[in-house]
């Protein structure tokens, strides 16, 4: 009996577990909603400060961001101290170096080109402790990267991170030849290098925050920052991560937690309802206007680590490339022509020493730039 029911039991259980299935849900959202101001950034009391201003988009919009341009942005301190920020790229307002007094409070004022005025709450300067260490650990699923920090004064309590990952990628082979005017010629060596080695980078896309206020000591132990799934391209050659750590206020922590819950932690059976967000920037023109974003003043601590392929044995990244062999005749060589998607790598000589055929592969296997790479070596590499 047991044996006979075993199979259906197993099937139904698989069903059950996979039942909580999801499928894409298309929705244009509510259309007649107003476009809200979004303010993001950290005021660095002793370094470059960038504040990003943008506006919310309709859900169905194709645009990724809608920068708020030509606004007047300034940081105000006690005794009418004013530190204006200037717009460099659209929506990014910067000031090269501030020197704010850690014992005083400051605030951010924004006046948009349409004449609406916004003011943040008064902000205290938070001092960020150093990142004690960044660790990584390999499991069957991949490599996890963790940060450790502490504040012996027990003052920090709320932490935020962001990071930028950089990794080297390589083509499967040098592209030694190229088709020019119907004939194959040798590719110059510097150009071969450019096609062979690239670097890619990505910024963190998740809100990374934690709190130690339930702990007896202000200790962050192995906070999971990033995860590289097994066989990912990121560790095909060498990988680096630059982590920035910020001390934030309790209010900022709660605000970002809510934003994270709204945007990253949906889809479970017991979802918390997404809610409206109210940050610490208020509209002076219309107090009921919602402004998205939470601004703080915090020193920034950074740390970078590298992980080499050699440190993760049997990583087995596979680009899935196939080599083709193309006869050295004019018609066949057209496969290496423009817009055919193939590049030649090496040549094969016949008994007589002449080139009988060329080896080649698809563009993304041979030209690392087509994989989204940048062939400028980063300064820290």
């Amino acid at each position, binding site marked *: 009996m047991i044996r006979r029911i075993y199979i259906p039991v197993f099937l139904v259980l698989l069903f059950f577990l996979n*039942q*909580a299935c999801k499928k*894409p*849900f298309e929705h244009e959202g*509510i259309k007649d909603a107003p476009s809200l101001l979004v303010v993001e950034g950290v005021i660095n009391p002793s370094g470059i400060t960038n504040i990003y201003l943008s506006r919310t988009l309709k859900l169905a919009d194709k645009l990724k*961001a809608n920068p708020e341009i030509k606004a007047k942005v300034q940081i105000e301190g006690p005794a009418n101290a004013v530190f204006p920020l200037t717009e460099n790229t659209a929506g990014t307002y910067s000031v090269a170096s501030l020197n704010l007094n850690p014992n005083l409070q400051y605030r951010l004022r924004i006046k948009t080109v349409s004449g609406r005025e916004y003011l943040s709450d008064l902000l205290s300067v938070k001092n960020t402790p150093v990142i004690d260490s960044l660790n990584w650990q390999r499991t069957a699923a991949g490599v996890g990267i963790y940060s450790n920090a502490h504040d012996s004064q027990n003052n920090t309590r709320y932490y935020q991170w962001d990071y930028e990952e950089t990794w080297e990628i390589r083509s499967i082979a040098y592209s030694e030849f190229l088709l020019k005017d119907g004939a194959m010629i040798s590719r110059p060596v510097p150009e071969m290098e450019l096609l062979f080695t690239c670097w890619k980078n990505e910024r963190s896309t998740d809100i990374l925050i934690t709190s130690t206020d339930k702990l*007896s000591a202000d200790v962050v132990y192995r906070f999971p920052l990033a995860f590289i799934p097994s066989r990912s391209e990121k560790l095909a050659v060498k990988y680096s991560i630059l982590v920035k750590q910020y001390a934030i206020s309790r209010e900022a922590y709660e605000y970002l937690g809510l934003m994270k819950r709204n945007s990253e932690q949906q*889809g479970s059976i*017991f979802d918390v309802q997404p809610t409206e967000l109210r940050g610490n920037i208020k509209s002076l023109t219309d107090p009921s206007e919602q402004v998205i974003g939470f601004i703080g003043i915090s020193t920034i601590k950074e740390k970078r680590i590298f992980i080499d392929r050699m440190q993760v044995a049997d990583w087995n990244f596979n680009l899935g490339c196939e080599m083709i062999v193309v006869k050295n005749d004019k018609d066949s060589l057209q496969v290496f022509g423009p817009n055919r998607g193939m590049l030649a790598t090496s040549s094969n000589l016949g008994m007589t020493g002449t080139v009988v055929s060329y080896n080649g592969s698809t563009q993304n296997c041979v030209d690392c730039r087509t994989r989204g790479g940048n062939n400028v070596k980063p300064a820290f590499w």
Partner: protein
Amino acid sequence: MTMNLKRSLILFCLIFFVFISNAQNKQVLISAEYKNATIREFVSDLEQKTDYRFYYDALQFDSLRVTLSAKDDSVSSIIKKAFLNTKFRFAIDLKHNVFLTKDLEIFASLPYGIFDSERDSLKWKGQQEILALADLSAAEVQSVQSSALSNKIVQIGNKNAPQKSGNISLAGYVRDAKTGTPVTGAAVFIEQPRIGTYTDQFGYYSLALPRGPHVLNIKALGIIDLKRPIILYSEGKLDIDIQSQVLSLKEVIISAESSANVRNVQMGVQKLSISSIKQVPVAFGEADIMKVMLTLPGVKSVGEAGNGFNVRGGAVDQNLIQFDDLTIYNPSHFFGFFSAFNPDVVKDVELYKSSIPSRFGGRLASVLDVNSRDGNNKKLSGKAGIGLLTGRINLEGPIIKDRTSFIMGARTTYSNWILKLLPDDSGYKNSKAAFYDMNLRISHKINDKNSLYISGYLSDDNSNLGGDTTFTYSNKNLSLKWKHIFSNKLTGLVVGGFSRYQYDNQSDQNPVNAYKMAFDINQANFKTDFNYYLSPKHTIDFGLSSIRYQLHPGTYLPLGSRSLVVSNVLQTEQAIESAAYLGDRFDLTDKLSLDLGVRYSMFNYLGPKSVNQYLPGLPVEPGNSTGSTNYQKGELVKTYHGPEMRFSGRYQFTDALSVKAAYNTLRQYIHLLTNSTAISPTDIWKLSDPNIKPQYGDQFSLGLYRNFKNNTVELSVEGYYKRLKDYLDYKSGASLIMNHHIETDVLNTKGKAYGVEFLIKKPVGKLNGWIGYTYSRTLLKTDDPTVGQLINRGNYYPANFDKPNDLTLVGNYRFSHRFSASFNATYSTGRPITVPVGKYYYAGSLRASYSDRNALRAPDYFRTDFSVNIEGNHKIHQLTHSSWTIGVYNLTGRDNAYSTYFISQKGVIRGYQLSIFGNAIPFVNYNIRF
């Protein structure tokens, strides 16, 4: 004098009444001629010419036209000719009373000669009507055979007792002849004058009847309708053993009594027997009380997962769920996929959604009263069932034959070990999904006047679905019940018990942050209920109840030696909730009945407690706190109290048509705090305190009830309007767990709910089931000026479970005694969802922005289920009986949206629709009875 009758004597059927044929009458010969005569003309002519008196329902005979001529013929012969080849039947008794009926044959006299001597001294008033109503067509062939003997008339009381004016009380138990278990909710009544009652949960009934002969009718779930002739001389007892239907031909009866729909004074009461619950197909095939509740009009839930249900716009915590008189705080296993009640030990389930009897209180929306069975007190027997994910077993039998019996049940899931068999990369390798529940009930009859019941219940869940957090939760209940019969008119019940709900979750993945969080609520109950049968017109209920709560709102403790977690323990809460009630079921006239009840409830919040105080008139926020006041142990911190009205009335136009109206007010002193759409087992309960007011609700409802086809089809239409006050909602971004000032994160919310519910039920027959349609709305609003940020700017917004249109069909067709098929279909409007108003770029990703709660709706919900039940052979004397249930849940495989959500992944927003059961789910269950 108690008549304890043997089983062979109980069976009683009118078919064995001796038909007094016309041969026994002295013939009167007459001549007559009729041409297209109506029944009235025909009868009045005969009444003129003879001393025969006719009794009939003119309406039934309006189609009859009599054309005949007779010379020197007998009355019976003339009628016989007149009724030749029609559906009309007649009967004549010794006193020349003629009873005309349609379809049904009646028997005009009780068995001849049995109590000849009494015949002169007692008037046989009303007897003919009783017999005319005899419903022989309803008697199954089998019942006819097995009811052969019991046409004996029972004499009750002392024949020579002095005649007193007024009524005489008669009381006793109705029990199952085979197992000795009490039959609850059985209607015990006489028709003329109409006096009746229902047996209580112990099978006890008490009636006050006029002296003289009566026919006592007993009708109940799953038993053969019984009529028992009695002669009542003086106060006495009559225990009635009844035969349950071995082949359970009518097991699908839904209402306790066929005309209860029309006759009950109470509104909005749904009683489901476990057998009707068992035939509704549910996912995984095991009978599930909670899921069947959801097929009733006015009962909704947010989706397939999640605990609890919503009744008429009430929140999940506004349902009082009682199992053997004790509160069950979490009626579900495994995050709501399974009901926590073992179907094999449950006797029946009663849901009160409109008129809540005054003996219940403490919750605003409904009472779900689940009763377990008494064990078989004749012989040891049991049942076992194997489903794909769960198995269960129960055992019952006598401890002292006919006096003490036990029933125990256990149920568990074996999905845990199957999860371990899953391959490593399935992602569920380390998952756990374990639960079990156990029941034990011991019933002991001390003597005729005293009975004792002990009931214990334990349920436990331990789950971890792939994550690093393990959730465990459990219910533990123990109750002791003593029933005492003071007299035939007064019975009393004393119940004491404890119930506890606890949960904890723990995570040890990060040794520094490893924690264990726990919550529990304990209550000690004491209550007394009394029933006093004052007169045939008045039945008085009264009683007292008291609950002592002790609630540990949260402890957060380090787990393991490396954990740096600081122990955080929220202060214990304690309170006493007491109530006294008085109710009168009052028959003003035959047609108009009232049920008037008043309940006075009081809630005392007790120390030791430190209570936060806030500036009056300002938002209750940490910034407006003015400190806290400390109260000593046992000191009274705050008292809330007030009366609750429970009024309902019924006006019965005809036997098959009535209107009812009800008005209820209720108070609730305990709240479930949740900020998720579906109620999770780790949501916390909170007692009212100086900063959190009790919830208050009232409901007005009006209904029309009509039975068709001899009470085999019931129609009801009920409308309601309900108001809620001080229902607790949460502020945007509220954290409700381990919160030392929870009052700052909740909002007092007003609600209104209204709707119309249509229900057509066919409780009996080969094809049976019900169709319900509900239109309802539930709207909430926060407009407290002392609250900072209002939800949806203080406007009304739909509650999470607001699904205006809801159509449900539950059907069962019995092909043969061994084979039946069940079908379900459910359609409802999709539940409200909160969708983004836009998107923005922040922290490296596009993110959705939100504004109003529940502004749009998920796609509509539609599901059909199908199952077949196959019984093994029906030989009574064999070691085991087995049955199979095979079916498919969600037959069409429609992936109904449980929720929709938008999530930022790798920098972009993706919208998803989550379905719990996105495919058709086949199931099979094997049950064995021994």
